Protein backbone atom coordinates (compact mmCIF):
# COMPACT_ATOMS: atom_id res chain seq x y z
CA UNK A 1 0.00 0.00 0.00
CA UNK A 2 1.36 3.40 -1.00
CA UNK A 3 0.49 6.19 1.41
CA UNK A 4 -0.69 9.46 -0.10
CA UNK A 5 -1.88 11.28 3.01
CA UNK A 6 -0.10 14.48 2.02
CA UNK A 7 0.89 15.80 -1.41
CA UNK A 8 3.03 18.89 -0.94
CA UNK A 9 2.84 21.47 -3.72
CA UNK A 10 6.24 22.96 -4.54
CA UNK A 11 6.32 25.94 -6.93
CA UNK A 12 8.31 24.84 -9.97
CA UNK A 13 10.33 28.02 -10.32
CA UNK A 14 11.70 28.23 -6.78
CA UNK A 15 15.14 26.55 -6.48
CA UNK A 16 15.24 26.97 -2.69
CA UNK A 17 11.93 25.21 -2.13
CA UNK A 18 12.79 22.51 -4.67
CA UNK A 19 16.09 21.93 -2.87
CA UNK A 20 14.43 21.67 0.56
CA UNK A 21 11.27 19.76 -0.41
CA UNK A 22 12.69 16.38 0.55
CA UNK A 23 13.35 17.26 4.19
CA UNK A 24 9.67 17.51 5.09
CA UNK A 25 7.73 14.36 6.01
CA UNK A 26 5.07 14.66 3.26
CA UNK A 27 4.30 11.36 1.53
CA UNK A 28 4.41 12.95 -1.93
CA UNK A 29 6.07 15.99 -3.47
CA UNK A 30 4.18 17.66 -6.28
CA UNK A 31 6.22 20.12 -8.34
CA UNK A 32 3.96 22.67 -9.91
CA UNK A 33 4.37 24.05 -13.42
CA UNK A 34 0.83 25.40 -13.56
CA UNK A 35 -0.89 27.95 -11.34
CA UNK A 36 2.05 28.89 -9.10
CA UNK A 37 4.22 29.83 -12.09
CA UNK A 38 3.67 33.07 -14.00
CA UNK A 39 3.27 32.90 -17.76
CA UNK A 40 6.65 34.57 -18.33
CA UNK A 41 8.45 31.98 -16.20
CA UNK A 42 6.92 28.76 -17.54
CA UNK A 43 10.07 27.94 -19.51
CA UNK A 44 12.31 28.55 -16.49
CA UNK A 45 10.20 26.34 -14.21
CA UNK A 46 10.14 23.54 -16.79
CA UNK A 47 13.94 23.52 -17.04
CA UNK A 48 14.34 23.76 -13.28
CA UNK A 49 12.01 20.87 -12.44
CA UNK A 50 13.52 18.76 -15.22
CA UNK A 51 17.05 19.33 -13.91
CA UNK A 52 15.99 18.78 -10.29
CA UNK A 53 14.36 15.46 -11.16
CA UNK A 54 17.50 14.41 -13.01
CA UNK A 55 19.76 15.38 -10.11
CA UNK A 56 18.21 15.54 -6.63
CA UNK A 57 17.39 12.41 -4.70
CA UNK A 58 14.18 12.52 -2.69
CA UNK A 59 14.39 9.28 -0.68
CA UNK A 60 11.08 7.66 0.16
CA UNK A 61 9.00 10.29 -1.63
CA UNK A 62 6.57 9.77 -4.44
CA UNK A 63 7.20 12.52 -7.00
CA UNK A 64 4.54 14.18 -9.14
CA UNK A 65 4.55 17.14 -11.50
CA UNK A 66 1.46 19.20 -12.21
CA UNK A 67 1.76 20.18 -15.85
CA UNK A 68 -0.12 22.87 -17.74
CA UNK A 69 -3.29 21.92 -19.59
CA UNK A 70 -2.60 19.86 -22.69
CA UNK A 71 -4.58 22.12 -24.99
CA UNK A 72 -1.71 24.60 -24.65
CA UNK A 73 1.80 24.37 -26.14
CA UNK A 74 3.07 24.70 -22.58
CA UNK A 75 1.42 21.45 -21.55
CA UNK A 76 2.98 19.44 -24.37
CA UNK A 77 6.43 20.92 -23.70
CA UNK A 78 5.98 20.12 -19.98
CA UNK A 79 5.31 16.49 -20.86
CA UNK A 80 8.43 16.36 -23.04
CA UNK A 81 10.54 17.68 -20.17
CA UNK A 82 9.10 15.61 -17.35
CA UNK A 83 8.26 12.21 -18.85
CA UNK A 84 11.82 12.00 -20.20
CA UNK A 85 13.24 12.03 -16.65
CA UNK A 86 11.42 8.78 -15.90
CA UNK A 87 10.96 9.87 -12.29
CA UNK A 88 7.59 11.54 -11.84
CA UNK A 89 3.89 10.88 -12.13
CA UNK A 90 2.09 13.42 -14.32
CA UNK A 91 -0.78 15.28 -12.69
CA UNK A 92 -3.15 16.58 -15.33
CA UNK A 93 -5.11 19.67 -14.22
CA UNK A 94 -8.65 20.63 -15.19
CA UNK A 95 -9.58 17.21 -16.54
CA UNK A 96 -13.08 17.20 -17.95
CA UNK A 97 -13.45 13.94 -19.86
CA UNK A 98 -11.96 10.51 -20.44
CA UNK A 99 -10.70 11.87 -23.78
CA UNK A 100 -8.42 14.32 -21.89
CA UNK A 101 -6.79 11.34 -20.20
CA UNK A 102 -6.49 9.40 -23.46
CA UNK A 103 -4.90 12.41 -25.22
CA UNK A 104 -2.37 12.80 -22.42
CA UNK A 105 -1.65 9.09 -22.35
CA UNK A 106 -0.99 9.06 -26.10
CA UNK A 107 1.59 11.84 -25.73
CA UNK A 108 3.23 10.14 -22.77
CA UNK A 109 3.47 6.84 -24.67
CA UNK A 110 5.09 8.61 -27.63
CA UNK A 111 7.68 10.31 -25.40
CA UNK A 112 8.40 7.11 -23.46
CA UNK A 113 9.11 5.35 -26.76
CA UNK A 114 11.29 8.20 -28.01
CA UNK A 115 13.26 8.32 -24.74
CA UNK A 116 13.73 4.56 -24.51
CA UNK A 117 11.68 4.27 -21.31
CA UNK A 118 9.64 1.20 -20.40
CA UNK A 119 6.22 1.60 -22.06
CA UNK A 120 3.58 2.39 -19.45
CA UNK A 121 6.10 3.27 -16.75
CA UNK A 122 4.91 6.86 -16.33
CA UNK A 123 2.02 7.21 -13.92
CA UNK A 124 -0.81 9.69 -14.27
CA UNK A 125 -3.12 11.46 -11.89
CA UNK A 126 -6.21 13.42 -12.87
CA UNK A 127 -7.59 16.50 -11.18
CA UNK A 128 -11.21 17.48 -11.77
CA UNK A 129 -11.98 21.12 -11.18
CA UNK A 130 -15.33 21.78 -12.88
CA UNK A 131 -18.95 20.60 -12.85
CA UNK A 132 -18.32 18.74 -16.10
CA UNK A 133 -15.23 17.07 -14.67
CA UNK A 134 -17.07 15.97 -11.54
CA UNK A 135 -19.98 14.55 -13.55
CA UNK A 136 -17.49 12.64 -15.74
CA UNK A 137 -15.36 11.53 -12.79
CA UNK A 138 -16.13 7.83 -13.19
CA UNK A 139 -15.18 7.76 -16.89
CA UNK A 140 -12.06 9.81 -16.12
CA UNK A 141 -10.95 7.50 -13.30
CA UNK A 142 -11.44 4.41 -15.44
CA UNK A 143 -9.87 5.84 -18.63
CA UNK A 144 -6.32 4.55 -18.19
CA UNK A 145 -4.42 1.92 -16.26
CA UNK A 146 -1.71 4.55 -15.75
CA UNK A 147 -3.92 6.46 -13.34
CA UNK A 148 -2.87 6.17 -9.72
CA UNK A 149 -5.45 8.58 -8.40
CA UNK A 150 -8.02 11.27 -8.99
CA UNK A 151 -8.16 14.56 -7.13
CA UNK A 152 -10.68 17.33 -6.73
CA UNK A 153 -9.57 20.94 -7.11
CA UNK A 154 -12.03 23.01 -5.13
CA UNK A 155 -11.24 26.61 -6.04
CA UNK A 156 -12.10 26.31 -9.74
CA UNK A 157 -14.93 23.89 -8.98
CA UNK A 158 -16.81 26.21 -6.59
CA UNK A 159 -16.31 29.09 -9.02
CA UNK A 160 -17.87 26.93 -11.72
CA UNK A 161 -20.78 26.18 -9.38
CA UNK A 162 -21.21 29.94 -8.81
CA UNK A 163 -20.59 29.69 -5.09
CA UNK A 164 -17.62 29.83 -2.73
CA UNK A 165 -16.00 27.66 -0.10
CA UNK A 166 -17.61 27.53 3.34
CA UNK A 167 -15.99 26.22 6.54
CA UNK A 168 -18.41 23.27 6.52
CA UNK A 169 -17.70 22.44 2.86
CA UNK A 170 -21.34 21.64 2.07
CA UNK A 171 -20.88 22.96 -1.48
CA UNK A 172 -18.12 20.36 -2.03
CA UNK A 173 -19.96 17.35 -0.68
CA UNK A 174 -21.36 16.15 -4.00
CA UNK A 175 -18.09 16.74 -5.89
CA UNK A 176 -16.02 15.03 -3.22
CA UNK A 177 -18.40 12.08 -3.11
CA UNK A 178 -18.35 11.71 -6.88
CA UNK A 179 -14.56 11.79 -7.00
CA UNK A 180 -14.30 9.32 -4.15
CA UNK A 181 -16.75 6.86 -5.72
CA UNK A 182 -15.04 7.24 -9.09
CA UNK A 183 -11.67 6.46 -7.51
CA UNK A 184 -12.98 3.45 -5.66
CA UNK A 185 -14.78 2.09 -8.70
CA UNK A 186 -11.50 2.31 -10.63
CA UNK A 187 -9.40 0.95 -7.77
CA UNK A 188 -7.28 4.09 -7.48
CA UNK A 189 -6.67 6.72 -4.80
CA UNK A 190 -8.84 9.75 -4.03
CA UNK A 191 -7.06 12.96 -3.09
CA UNK A 192 -8.80 15.95 -1.58
CA UNK A 193 -8.27 19.59 -2.45
CA UNK A 194 -5.97 22.05 -0.66
CA UNK A 195 -6.93 23.93 2.49
CA UNK A 196 -5.84 27.44 1.59
CA UNK A 197 -5.79 29.15 5.02
CA UNK A 198 -2.39 28.00 6.23
CA UNK A 199 -2.71 29.82 9.58
CA UNK A 200 -5.97 28.08 10.49
CA UNK A 201 -4.90 24.71 11.90
CA UNK A 202 -8.26 24.11 13.53
CA UNK A 203 -10.01 24.51 10.17
CA UNK A 204 -7.50 22.19 8.51
CA UNK A 205 -8.03 19.54 11.18
CA UNK A 206 -11.81 19.82 10.83
CA UNK A 207 -11.66 19.48 7.04
CA UNK A 208 -9.19 16.58 7.21
CA UNK A 209 -11.38 14.73 9.71
CA UNK A 210 -14.29 15.16 7.30
CA UNK A 211 -12.47 13.92 4.20
CA UNK A 212 -10.91 10.99 6.08
CA UNK A 213 -14.39 9.96 7.21
CA UNK A 214 -15.64 10.25 3.62
CA UNK A 215 -12.87 7.83 2.63
CA UNK A 216 -10.22 10.00 0.97
CA UNK A 217 -6.63 8.74 0.96
CA UNK A 218 -5.18 12.18 1.60
CA UNK A 219 -4.97 15.86 0.73
CA UNK A 220 -2.99 18.18 -1.46
CA UNK A 221 -1.20 20.73 0.72
CA UNK A 222 0.46 24.08 0.12
CA UNK A 223 2.63 24.46 3.23
CA UNK A 224 4.85 22.03 5.18
CA UNK A 225 3.12 23.17 8.39
CA UNK A 226 0.01 21.32 7.22
CA UNK A 227 1.75 17.92 7.13
CA UNK A 228 1.79 17.10 10.84
CA UNK A 229 -1.90 17.82 11.61
CA UNK A 230 -3.02 15.73 8.62
CA UNK A 231 -0.74 12.81 9.47
CA UNK A 232 -1.99 12.90 13.06
CA UNK A 233 -5.57 12.60 11.89
CA UNK A 234 -4.65 9.71 9.58
CA UNK A 235 -2.77 7.95 12.41
CA UNK A 236 -4.86 5.19 14.01
CA UNK A 237 -5.45 5.15 17.77
CA UNK A 238 -3.80 2.58 20.07
CA UNK A 239 -7.18 0.88 20.45
CA UNK A 240 -7.65 0.61 16.68
CA UNK A 241 -4.13 -0.78 16.25
CA UNK A 242 -4.52 -3.37 19.02
CA UNK A 243 -7.84 -4.54 17.61
CA UNK A 244 -6.43 -4.75 14.08
CA UNK A 245 -3.41 -6.74 15.25
CA UNK A 246 -5.73 -9.23 16.96
CA UNK A 247 -7.79 -9.55 13.77
CA UNK A 248 -4.73 -10.19 11.60
CA UNK A 249 -3.40 -12.70 14.17
CA UNK A 250 -6.75 -14.51 14.19
CA UNK A 251 -6.64 -14.73 10.38
CA UNK A 252 -3.08 -16.14 10.48
CA UNK A 253 -4.08 -18.68 13.14
CA UNK A 254 -7.08 -19.80 11.10
CA UNK A 255 -4.87 -20.18 8.02
CA UNK A 256 -2.47 -22.38 10.00
CA UNK A 257 -5.35 -24.55 11.16
CA UNK A 258 -6.69 -24.71 7.62
CA UNK A 259 -9.98 -23.34 8.86
CA UNK A 260 -12.12 -21.24 6.55
CA UNK A 261 -14.11 -19.76 9.41
CA UNK A 262 -12.38 -17.00 11.35
CA UNK A 263 -13.73 -15.62 14.60
CA UNK A 264 -12.49 -13.25 17.27
CA UNK A 265 -14.21 -12.93 20.64
CA UNK A 266 -17.25 -14.68 19.22
CA UNK A 267 -17.55 -12.38 16.20
CA UNK A 268 -16.96 -13.55 12.66
CA UNK A 269 -14.13 -11.89 10.73
CA UNK A 270 -15.02 -11.48 7.10
CA UNK A 271 -13.12 -9.92 4.21
CA UNK A 272 -14.14 -6.26 4.76
CA UNK A 273 -13.13 -6.48 8.43
CA UNK A 274 -9.76 -7.94 7.42
CA UNK A 275 -9.19 -5.25 4.79
CA UNK A 276 -10.02 -2.46 7.24
CA UNK A 277 -7.68 -3.97 9.83
CA UNK A 278 -4.86 -4.18 7.29
CA UNK A 279 -5.35 -0.52 6.33
CA UNK A 280 -5.19 0.50 9.99
CA UNK A 281 -1.90 -1.40 10.35
CA UNK A 282 -0.52 0.14 7.15
CA UNK A 283 -1.32 3.63 8.44
CA UNK A 284 0.14 2.78 11.85
CA UNK A 285 3.26 1.45 10.20
CA UNK A 286 3.64 4.65 8.15
CA UNK A 287 3.38 6.65 11.35
CA UNK A 288 6.13 4.49 12.90
CA UNK A 289 3.79 3.18 15.61
CA UNK A 290 4.16 -0.53 14.88
CA UNK A 291 7.94 -0.35 15.01
CA UNK A 292 7.78 1.50 18.32
CA UNK A 293 5.43 -1.15 19.73
CA UNK A 294 7.81 -3.95 18.69
CA UNK A 295 10.73 -2.14 20.32
CA UNK A 296 8.83 -1.54 23.57
Amino acid at each position, binding site marked *: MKLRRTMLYVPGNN*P*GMIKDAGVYPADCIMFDLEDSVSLAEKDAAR*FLVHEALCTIDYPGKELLVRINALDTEMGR*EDLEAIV*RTGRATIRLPKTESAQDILDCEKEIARIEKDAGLVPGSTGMMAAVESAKGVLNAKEIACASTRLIGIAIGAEDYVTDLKTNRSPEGIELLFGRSMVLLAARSAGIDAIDTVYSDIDNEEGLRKETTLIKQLGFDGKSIINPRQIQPIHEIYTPTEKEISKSLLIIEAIEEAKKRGSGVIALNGKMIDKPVALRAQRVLDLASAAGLLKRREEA
Partner: protein
Amino acid sequence: MQIKETAIAGTLESSDIMITLEPGSDGIEIDLQSAVEKQFGREIRALIRETLTGLGIAAARVTAIDKGALDCAIRARVKTAACRAAGETVFPWGAVKK
Protein backbone atom coordinates in the same frame (compact mmCIF):
# COMPACT_ATOMS: atom_id res chain seq x y z
CA MET B 1 21.74 27.30 -30.80
CA GLN B 2 22.92 30.88 -31.38
CA ILE B 3 22.77 33.82 -28.96
CA LYS B 4 20.94 36.54 -30.88
CA GLU B 5 20.02 38.99 -28.13
CA THR B 6 20.51 39.66 -24.43
CA ALA B 7 18.42 37.48 -22.13
CA ILE B 8 18.17 36.93 -18.38
CA ALA B 9 17.04 33.94 -16.32
CA GLY B 10 16.93 33.30 -12.58
CA THR B 11 16.62 35.56 -9.57
CA LEU B 12 18.75 37.00 -6.78
CA GLU B 13 16.95 34.89 -4.17
CA SER B 14 18.80 32.42 -1.98
CA SER B 15 19.64 29.09 -3.71
CA ASP B 16 19.21 30.70 -7.14
CA ILE B 17 21.56 32.19 -9.73
CA MET B 18 20.86 35.05 -12.13
CA ILE B 19 22.31 34.43 -15.56
CA THR B 20 22.59 37.19 -18.16
CA LEU B 21 23.60 36.07 -21.64
CA GLU B 22 24.75 38.43 -24.36
CA PRO B 23 26.07 37.79 -27.85
CA GLY B 24 29.84 37.34 -27.83
CA SER B 25 32.57 37.10 -30.42
CA ASP B 26 35.53 35.75 -28.48
CA GLY B 27 34.45 32.36 -27.14
CA ILE B 28 32.59 32.05 -23.84
CA GLU B 29 33.48 34.83 -21.36
CA ILE B 30 32.16 34.46 -17.84
CA ASP B 31 31.90 37.17 -15.18
CA LEU B 32 30.93 35.43 -11.92
CA GLN B 33 29.92 36.96 -8.59
CA SER B 34 29.41 34.42 -5.83
CA ALA B 35 29.77 34.29 -2.06
CA VAL B 36 31.37 30.88 -2.52
CA GLU B 37 33.64 31.93 -5.37
CA LYS B 38 36.84 30.91 -3.56
CA GLN B 39 35.55 27.38 -2.88
CA PHE B 40 33.43 26.72 -5.96
CA GLY B 41 34.12 29.47 -8.50
CA ARG B 42 36.06 27.20 -10.81
CA GLU B 43 33.35 24.52 -10.72
CA ILE B 44 30.55 27.03 -11.35
CA ARG B 45 32.37 28.53 -14.33
CA ALA B 46 33.07 25.05 -15.71
CA LEU B 47 29.42 24.07 -15.33
CA ILE B 48 28.20 27.20 -17.12
CA ARG B 49 30.71 26.66 -19.91
CA GLU B 50 29.87 22.96 -20.22
CA THR B 51 26.11 23.67 -20.35
CA LEU B 52 26.51 26.30 -23.07
CA THR B 53 28.85 24.07 -25.08
CA GLY B 54 26.33 21.23 -24.75
CA LEU B 55 23.76 23.51 -26.38
CA GLY B 56 26.15 24.18 -29.27
CA ILE B 57 26.94 27.73 -28.15
CA ALA B 58 30.55 28.66 -28.89
CA ALA B 59 30.46 32.40 -28.21
CA ALA B 60 28.63 34.32 -25.48
CA ARG B 61 29.20 36.83 -22.71
CA VAL B 62 27.86 35.52 -19.40
CA THR B 63 27.22 37.48 -16.24
CA ALA B 64 26.37 35.18 -13.34
CA ILE B 65 25.31 36.33 -9.86
CA ASP B 66 25.20 33.25 -7.68
CA LYS B 67 23.26 33.02 -4.43
CA GLY B 68 24.19 29.47 -3.52
CA ALA B 69 22.51 27.61 -6.38
CA LEU B 70 22.82 23.84 -6.74
CA ASP B 71 24.31 22.50 -9.97
CA CYS B 72 20.85 21.57 -11.26
CA ALA B 73 19.63 25.15 -10.77
CA ILE B 74 22.72 26.55 -12.53
CA ARG B 75 22.17 24.25 -15.52
CA ALA B 76 18.46 25.13 -15.62
CA ARG B 77 19.05 28.87 -15.52
CA VAL B 78 21.75 28.72 -18.21
CA LYS B 79 19.47 26.68 -20.49
CA THR B 80 16.56 29.04 -19.88
CA ALA B 81 18.67 32.12 -20.64
CA ALA B 82 20.14 30.44 -23.72
CA CYS B 83 16.74 29.54 -25.16
CA ARG B 84 15.46 33.05 -24.49
CA ALA B 85 18.55 34.63 -26.04
CA ALA B 86 18.27 32.38 -29.08
CA GLY B 87 14.53 32.94 -29.45
CA GLU B 88 13.82 29.20 -29.10
CA THR B 89 10.45 28.22 -27.66
CA VAL B 90 10.71 24.48 -28.25
CA PHE B 91 13.69 22.71 -26.70
CA PRO B 92 15.27 19.54 -28.18
CA TRP B 93 14.76 17.50 -25.00
CA GLY B 94 15.85 14.32 -26.70
CA ALA B 95 19.36 15.67 -26.92
CA VAL B 96 19.63 16.01 -23.16
CA LYS B 97 18.04 12.69 -22.17
CA LYS B 98 19.62 11.36 -18.96
